[in-house]
């Protein structure tokens, strides 16, 4: 308890437990393989983290508001497939807004169920995970989706282009992170998200429309998912139906790794970005030290759990809690 307020280096380390763990991993990887800290490798990691990162930004809103969103993975597959399909029928200029519209409609539906009907978000979004997957398969007829004329379209701009040498996915991730960080930390809406997640009843007693706030957190999440789908589709110009499978848990891990509480009411966009980077660099580091592909998932999750443990241990000053 007293450790939280400790001053000096020890106190700083205790507050930044997750960053400390991160730095330790980085140093370890860098010692094992010099390439890990090469500039182009670092850019590469951030670029490949951008898609999951964009989704994590949206889920941060949902989690701070006191709910979960497990539907983002299959919703991202949906966005990707839809935009690729519409690209060939409507052309890219109409396909992109149409895809955003459809994805936002899904988000609005979830927001309605969780916010206004007050259904449990775990059940709703778990159900939507499957339902949206079915929707995607129905749309595509079970086929992979490919753009017919890959050379003749400007659609690859978002996933493959760059601005002044900075890859577009990084630009989009960075811009979105900045904008959403301002929304969350500086606007009345952001404040209400924290209030609703921190103590919903007190929020109601303060005249905050709880249902509407929750509704909008899911809308923001859906917007981020649509952006991620656009990045994915634009990068590969073709996709399987299951491209986002399993992303929901990785995204949630990033958000929690960054330090948001699953109980709601705490977390920031900056912390989530840190969580995203930790995740990306660990994955990359394991690849570079030559770990076998199939073992990687096991190690990644072991490392994440270890990092979260170290974080909590540093905060309470002990490795385990003496009181159950």
């Amino acid at each position, binding site marked *: *308890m007293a450790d939280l307020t400790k001053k000096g280096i020890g106190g700083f380390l205790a507050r930044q437990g997750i960053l400390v763990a991160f730095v330790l991993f980085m140093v370890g990887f860098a010692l094992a393989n010099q390439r890990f800290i090469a500039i182009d490798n670092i850019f590469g990691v951030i670029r490949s983290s951008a898609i999951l990162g964009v989704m994590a930004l949206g889920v941060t809103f949902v989690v701070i508001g006191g709910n979960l969103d497990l539907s983002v993975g299959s919703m991202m597959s949906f966005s990707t497939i839809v935009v690729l399909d519409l690209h060939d029928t409507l052309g890219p200029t109409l396909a992109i807004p149409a895809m955003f519209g459809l994805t936002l409609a899904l988000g609005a539906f979830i927001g309605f169920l969780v916010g206004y009907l007050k259904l449990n978000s775990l059940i709703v979004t778990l159900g939507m995970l499957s339902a949206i997957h079915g929707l995607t398969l129905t749309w595509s007829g079970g086929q992979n989706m490919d753009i017919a004329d890959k050379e003749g379209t400007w659609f690859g701009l978002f996933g493959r282009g760059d601005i002044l040498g900075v890859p577009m996915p990084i630009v989009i991730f960075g811009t979105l992170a900045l904008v959403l960080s301002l929304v969350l930390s500086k*606007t*009345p809406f952001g404040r209400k998200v*924290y209030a609703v997640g*921190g*103590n919903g009843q007190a*929020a109601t007693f303060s005249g*905050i*429309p709880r249902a509407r706030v929750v509704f909008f957190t899911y809308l923001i999440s859906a917007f981020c998912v649509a952006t991620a789908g656009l990045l994915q589709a634009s990068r590969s110009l073709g996709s399987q139906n299951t491209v986002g499978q399993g992303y929901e848990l990785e995204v949630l891990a990033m958000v929690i790794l960054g330090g948001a509480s699953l109980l709601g009411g705490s977390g920031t966009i900056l912390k989530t970005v840190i969580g995203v980077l930790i995740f990306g660099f660990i994955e990359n580091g394991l690849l570079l030290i030559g770990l076998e592909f199939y073992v990687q998932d096991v190690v990644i999750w072991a490392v994440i759990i270890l990092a979260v443990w170290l974080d909590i241990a540093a905060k309470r000053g002990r490795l385990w809690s003496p009181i159950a």
Partner: protein
Amino acid sequence: MTDQPPVLRLEGVVKTFPGVRALDGVSFDLRPGEVHALMGENGAGKSTLMKVLGGIYDPNEGQICVAEEQVEITSPMQAKARGVVFIHQELSLADELTVAENIWLGELPLKSFGRVDWGKLYADTDAILKTLNVSFDARTRVGDLSIANQQMVEIARALTVDPRAVIFDEPTASLTDAEKVVLFKVIADLQSRGVGIIYISHRMEEIFKITDRISVLRDGQYRGTLNTAETDEEAVTQLMIGRKLDLSRNESHHEMGDVALEVRGLSCGHLFNDVSFTVHRGEVVGFYGLVGAGRTEIAETIFGLRDPSEGQILLGGEEVRIHSPIEAIARGISLVPEDRKGQGLVLGMNCRDNMTLPQVDDLTAGPFVSDGAEISIFDQYRDKLDIRTPGWRQTVGNLSGGNQQKIVIGKWLSMRPEVLIVDEPTRGIDVGSKSEIHNLIRDLAAQGYAVIVISSEMPEVLHVSDRIVAMFSGRVMRTFTSDEVTEDSLIQAISGLQGDKVA
């Protein structure tokens, strides 16, 4: 009694936190069979002292002796094993389990193969409950009990060991007068068995009724111990806050304005029935009654949290229908709720953000919340209400109860409401802050606010109200002016005794 060695003795206990000496050389002793009050304002160090005794904090200096043996207490279990048990203000019971399971949680009696010995469990529990003289048995589900009875379960839990010292922390905070009588009997019983009792409370009447000695803390320092029989409220208060305190009936009368709020024949299911009253600008109307008389429910209905089944609400002479707190706030109604932590505050948020929460939409510069506007509101009400906090960034959960309540009051005052409803304004708050809040309520009325105060404490109601509405079982029994009210007539009215029923 005085010759026996103390059951518990503290000597020069010091506990420091960064920048604060929370306890600064506290010494006192607890004799067997005495009730020893521990008093002090919020933040005086009572809770810290209790946490040291309970093994949650490690003292930096000083020693603790249980039965003249120097001990080091490092966990709540250890404290209990040494016979030092706590009855906490906030109950920590599992609603879905039975009384017996709650009492023996973690130490259920076992038979072979780890099976629970239900027979012994229920028999042991009923034996303890019998000494407490309660109306429920071991098999009752705790969630079905009233708050008072749940407190009895907490007490029963303390009796599973042979206690040397029992520490009661604000035990009467949510009890009715009748329930208090039962609690005091239990305390007297423990006393007669030679148990030492530390009794923490802000309620003077109780302190003088049941304690033998009173020890006072101020700013972490021990200020002395008084024999209850040889002292009076004034002396204790002076020791606690270093000045005198005023606890008389309200006698100030100022100009009253128009009717701000009128309620006609309001009903809500079986919660309350045919309730009518008016509140003028510049007037404080007190609602007094037992817990469950329907007072809070009336407030919640006016605030849009419940829909009335019948009746009308008129604001400034115009009938309104209010379906949500948003609408209530827009019409200038504010509610300081009864449950500070559950309904009043987002505990993980900082002081400023809590205070400005209802009006955050109006405090913007462009699309963003204006830091400056928020801080100036916070500073204004921090000074006005004398809120003690290191700064607006402080998390509200870390403040004392009195300061938390002031944040909630500040939150609603800064909305400049037409009608301010305050539900149990000083529950769990120390004497000093209490009188500050009372003065504040009177000031607000003088400034022309229409104020409703709901309280279960008679001195409070008498002290702040211009008129008092006495309620019993969902009905208004009688309305008194502050000139005509007497304690007896008030008690009769809220007990449902008929007599001279004049509406």
